[in-house]
């Protein structure tokens, strides 16, 4: 009997998994919340996306063809994954946050979790002002909507992702005042070799990054190393930022402050994996809080595989390689099979790239730029001072008393930051409801079940 493989996410990892699972003869079902496949990396719109932002388009076009052989559910919000009695995925299909979407239940023999990651933005005084967005938002709006948030943007944070973000803003018609990278020149030289952004053996990645760096040079955009945006100024909207040197621990260095005029800020301090589906499925996590996988990308739960950013932040090429391995293994294929050897080799190469991203890891000194009244939890407007009041309480008591992480985003935005500030794990990623579902939609499930029984 044909194995059915369900895949959560249609980004690079999910699509590569679908392609590989199909090649191994599986019946493949892909679910993604987007209107189009491609995930955040290929967040393209036929009419609205500037062609120059469509990186690796040939690869995408090839993977896109899997959509014809697999069953692809677009606009599918997976809100629950059960693995207790076989694999069962519950989703709602229809417009984002609609109130009358169609319920979909998928039973499968194997599951590939390729839910990706989202930006992590550290709090900065003033970061709730309109005009402050995440680096990923700048990228997504430019790609998906051809839109910009301001005329003059400071891009700040850490990691090579800042480069394509700055590039996209410029291509969408904005201007980038500066790119501010917290890692210092010395650290980057150590981490990446003498020629930053270039890596032997990862030609595609190096070429892509070199292209962005070239764009910055051409537009004469200043690139600052070892600096950070430590304050955002404005009355009702962004008017300027303070840029400041930070030491190797990301502690702001007094006396180095300067003001940069801008009307928008894009913040990106790395990525947070989207773990809730994997956690609900019962997958073990590493101490660094990624899904633990073996050589076959198999998780600790039987027949559940994971690939891409949920297993470690590595970028699109890593995700493609891991996805292919996961999909192939989920379909019952063996890693000795010649059809998957290319992906196994690519995965090894790309993991070398991923390791280098540690150069940009968040330094503990960043908390030095917070004020007591800086909002940490954006949903519930919880300040740092309020969190400090409950420093001695249990994490659960703290959460209920301050409401940090209890708001609409359920700690997706502030969770890791809150844990840093209270120096304790809060387990924000354990979410009983994986994505939005309305009470009426839930009620209809009961009525449907009830009817079946009659």
């Amino acid at each position, binding site marked *: 009997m044909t194995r059915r493989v369900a895949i959560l996410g249609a980004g690079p990892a999910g699509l590569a998994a679908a392609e590989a699972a199909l090649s191994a003869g599986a019946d493949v079902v892909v679910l993604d*919340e987007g*209107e189009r496949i491609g995930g*955040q990396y290929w967040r393209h*719109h*036929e*009419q*609205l996306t500037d062609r120059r932002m469509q990186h690796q388009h040939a690869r995408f076009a090839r993977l896109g063809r899997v959509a014809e052989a697999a069953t692809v559910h677009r606009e599918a919000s997976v809100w629950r994954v059960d693995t207790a009695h076989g694999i069962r995925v519950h989703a709602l299909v229809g*417009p*984002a*946050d*609609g*109130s009358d979407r169609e319920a979909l239940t998928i039973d499968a023999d194997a599951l590939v979790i390729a839910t990706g990651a*989202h*930006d992590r*933005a550290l709090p900065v005084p003033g970061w*709730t*002002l*309109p*005009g*402050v*967005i*995440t680096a*990923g*938002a*700048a*990228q*997504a*709006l430019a790609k*998906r*909507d*051809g*839109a*910009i*948030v*301001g005329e003059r943007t400071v891009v700040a944070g850490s990691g090579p992702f800042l480069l394509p973000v700055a590039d996209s803003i410029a291509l969408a018609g904005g201007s980038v005042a500066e790119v501010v990278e917290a890692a210092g020149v010395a650290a980057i030289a150590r981490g990446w070799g003498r020629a930053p952004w270039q890596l032997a053996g990862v030609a595609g990645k190096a070429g892509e990054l070199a292209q962005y760096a070239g764009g910055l040079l051409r537009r004469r955009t200043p690139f600052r190393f070892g600096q950070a945006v430590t304050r955002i100024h404005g009355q*009702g*909207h962004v008017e300027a930022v303070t840029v400041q040197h930070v030491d190797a621990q990301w502690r702001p260095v007094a006396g180095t402050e300067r003001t940069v005029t801008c009307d928008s800020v894009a913040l990106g301090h790395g990525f947070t994996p989207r773990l809730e589906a994997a956690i609900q499925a019962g997958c073990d996590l590493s101490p660094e809080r990624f899904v633990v996988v073996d050589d076959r990308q198999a998780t600790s739960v039987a027949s559940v595989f994971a690939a891409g950013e949920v297993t470690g932040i590595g970028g699109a090429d890593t995700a493609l390689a891991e996805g292919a391995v996961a999909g192939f293994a989920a379909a019952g294929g063996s890693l000795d099979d010649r059809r998957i050897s290319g992906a196994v080799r690519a995965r090894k190469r790309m993991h070398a790239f991923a390791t280098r991203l540690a150069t940009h890891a968040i330094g503990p000194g960043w908390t030095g730029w917070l004020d007591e009244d800086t909002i940490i939890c*954006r*949903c519930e*407007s919880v300040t740092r001072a309020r969190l400090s009041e409950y420093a001695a309480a249990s994490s659960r008591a703290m959460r209920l008393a301050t409401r940090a992480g209890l*708001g*609409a*985003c359920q700690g*997706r*935005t502030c969770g890791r930051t809150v844990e840093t500030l209270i120096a304790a794990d809060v387990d924000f990623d354990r979410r009983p409801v994986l994505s*939005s579902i309305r009470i009426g939609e839930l009620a209809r499930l009961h009525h449907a079940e009830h009817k079946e029984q009659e």
Partner: protein
Amino acid sequence: MSVRIRFDGEEIAGRDGQTIAGVLLGAGRRSWRLAGGAERGVFCGIGVCQDCVVTVNGIENVRACQRTALEGDVVEREAR
């Protein structure tokens, strides 16, 4: 091709296929929600943070960055 929505009683035109957030930003709006008395708009842009939610055709809590604008959509601010 263009799409027209109503926001705050005003008609706003965007490009066909844009999200509600894209249409609002294109019209120069940067915030459309009140949180603890302060203006908020788009933040994460990929449906994670819930900062950009609006009421669309009477249904609350719709993420403006995720919902594609449809001709005639009536979009209202939310506050809490």
